[in-house]
């Protein structure tokens, strides 16, 4: 009878979870084996480490890893950090809060490519920002801001795009915290920062982790913002993967793809533990 119940559960899960597992598994399987010389599209399959060796011997690979990590980490932290005060502000409904909430979520509806092109129009040599600053006399001549070396443009776009997403995840969680809890903390002498650090953040840690991880993975694998508004002396990992793929170097492209997956996986685990450590410290086991 017990076995029958298990079978029932498996049968019920299969259409959804099974499909996800199958397709995800297939992609992982093909990418990993292709990075080792198998699934060769233009010749014989041959198991080899040479493609990984080539990647590890190139500066462009390490620079891409560093750069993608930089964009992923900074974007996720800033997005979530900005989303918290807004979510706290919108915790209690007030006149106009629904409209504000809707406006803040508008970037979710705009495709990244469109946003990147609009942004480039703003910061171009003769773009709107340069024209305004020259007009008001702040600058004598246009400043070159497009495709800046420090990827400030990409970070602005990432935060613009991901902040509403973080807000969406955090708002529900923050709204579910009862007034009693907040009031009790206040009665015990907790100031605003202490309430955020010791009450609100620990109680919303699951949502915070979800937002951080999802934004980190998305920004790490960014292609559209980087290819239009990103620095021209760096490749994001997705860009590097496409560079190899467009040159018919599928095995190296697969190696970069596997790298993205590994970093995403390790990054998710790291974010999960780090946030728990920050907010629970040594009490991490109690949290479990």
């Amino acid at each position, binding site marked *: 009878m017990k076995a029958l119940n298990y079978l029932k559960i498996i049968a019920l899960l299969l259409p959804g979870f099974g499909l996800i597992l199958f397709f995800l598994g297939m992609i992982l399987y093909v990418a990993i084996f292709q990075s080792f010389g198998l699934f060769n*599209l233009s010749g014989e399959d041959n198991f080899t480490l040479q493609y990984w060796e080539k990647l590890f011997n190139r500066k*462009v690979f390490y620079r891409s890893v560093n750069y993608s990590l930089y964009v992923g980490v900074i974007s996720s932290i800033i997005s979530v950090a900005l989303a918290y005060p807004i979510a706290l502000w919108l915790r209690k409904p007030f006149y106009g809060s629904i409209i504000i909430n809707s406006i803040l979520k508008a970037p979710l509806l705009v495709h990244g490519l469109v946003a990147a092109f609009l942004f480039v129009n703003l910061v171009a040599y003769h773009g709107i920002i340069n024209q305004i600053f020259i007009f008001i006399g702040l600058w004598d001549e*246009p400043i070159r801001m497009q495709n800046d070396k420090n990827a400030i443009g990409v970070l602005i776009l990432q935060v613009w795009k991901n902040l509403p997403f973080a807000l969406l995840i955090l708002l529900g969680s923050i709204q579910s915290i009862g007034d009693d809890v907040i009031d009790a903390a206040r009665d015990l002498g907790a100031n605003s920062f202490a309430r955020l650090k010791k009450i609100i953040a620990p109680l919303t840690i699951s949502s915070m982790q979800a937002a951080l991880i999802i934004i980190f993975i998305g920004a790490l694998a960014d292609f559209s913002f980087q290819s239009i508004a990103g620095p021209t002396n760096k490749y994001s990992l997705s860009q590097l993967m496409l560079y190899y793929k467009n040159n018919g170097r599928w095995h190296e492209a697969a190696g970069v793809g596997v790298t993205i997956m590994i970093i995403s996986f390790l990054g998710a685990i790291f974010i999960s533990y780090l946030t728990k450590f920050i907010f629970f410290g040594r009490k991490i086991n109690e949290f479990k």
Partner: protein
Amino acid sequence: MYRKILAVFSLLSVMLYSGFTFGGSHNWDEVLAEAKKEGKVNWFQWYLVDALAEFIKPFEEEYGIDVVITQGKHTVNIDKAVAEMGRSKGDIDVLSLGFDKIPDLNMPGMFIKLSDELPKDSRTTNLAGVDAKDYAYAWWGNQSGFAYDPEKVDESKLPQTPEEIAQFWEANPGKFGFNYENGGSGPSFFQNILRVMGSADFTSGESSPEKISKLKPGIDYFNKYADKYIITAGNADSIQRISDKEIWMAPAWEDHLAGLQKRGEVRKEIKMYIPSMGMNGGGNGVAIPKNAPNPHAALVFANWLLSAETQTGFNRDFGAAPLHPEADDSSALISNSQRAYRQNWASNPFSKDLTDHFIEEVMMNR
């Protein structure tokens, strides 16, 4: 009895052959009749799709064949053709592909030999150092050079050599840009600088660490003047920045600039030249997969694309360099005298190793 069996076997073989493979019909009138019956051709083309849809209307009216142009990317179209190789009938009738992609493809396995099927005419199957061996013919010629703003640049002193280009950079820092991805105009530039300044043999595709090390003078040149030029995001970005007066000079493709000017997307004053040190020429070919769903219509369309009249039209409407000797090239942006400076792309694997080396030693140092 033996002869009868042999005759029947031979007949069956011919029937089977004609049933499983396309071709064998050299009678162009029959091809035309079959093409009209098919009535449709799927052209997998990746650029100027809307403008070309207008351009091909006379063909559709003349032959009664609808041309469906897809919106796919270049590499995606090629990947699709590769993926469909095993299918008895694919989706692609006519495939446009850059000549630089041809060495990476199994041309005899994927495409029909056009010389066996098309009427005799002047065709270009050897372009920019790549021999397509009649499995593809060039239908679109392009030439890279330097686009410049005549308002800012002294036309009597256009830089011709690496030394003169360096002088231009010194005199006008930040006013010269080139790309190393999203298009081949920048790669044409750095490849020619590396060729002229170094001692590597660019006529051979052979690659080795020793050969790559011979590129050092050119690599040092780019690193020495790194803060004097800018890197753009692609072919289009380079031209756009000249039009926007941000920069004054950049490598560009002749047909690309002409097309943007004709559509009013960039300033018409921008001019172009080929420096005497040389810039690469290239082109795109047309090929018909063996499993084309409308093979006769595909042949008729390919034949039309390659004709002198159509090639004249490409030059007139798009600024493309004609690839038929009887075509008129009077609408070109670049004078005929400068065409002598045309260079071929370095062949693979050397070309790929060179690009990797450039990115590694120049771009990664910025």
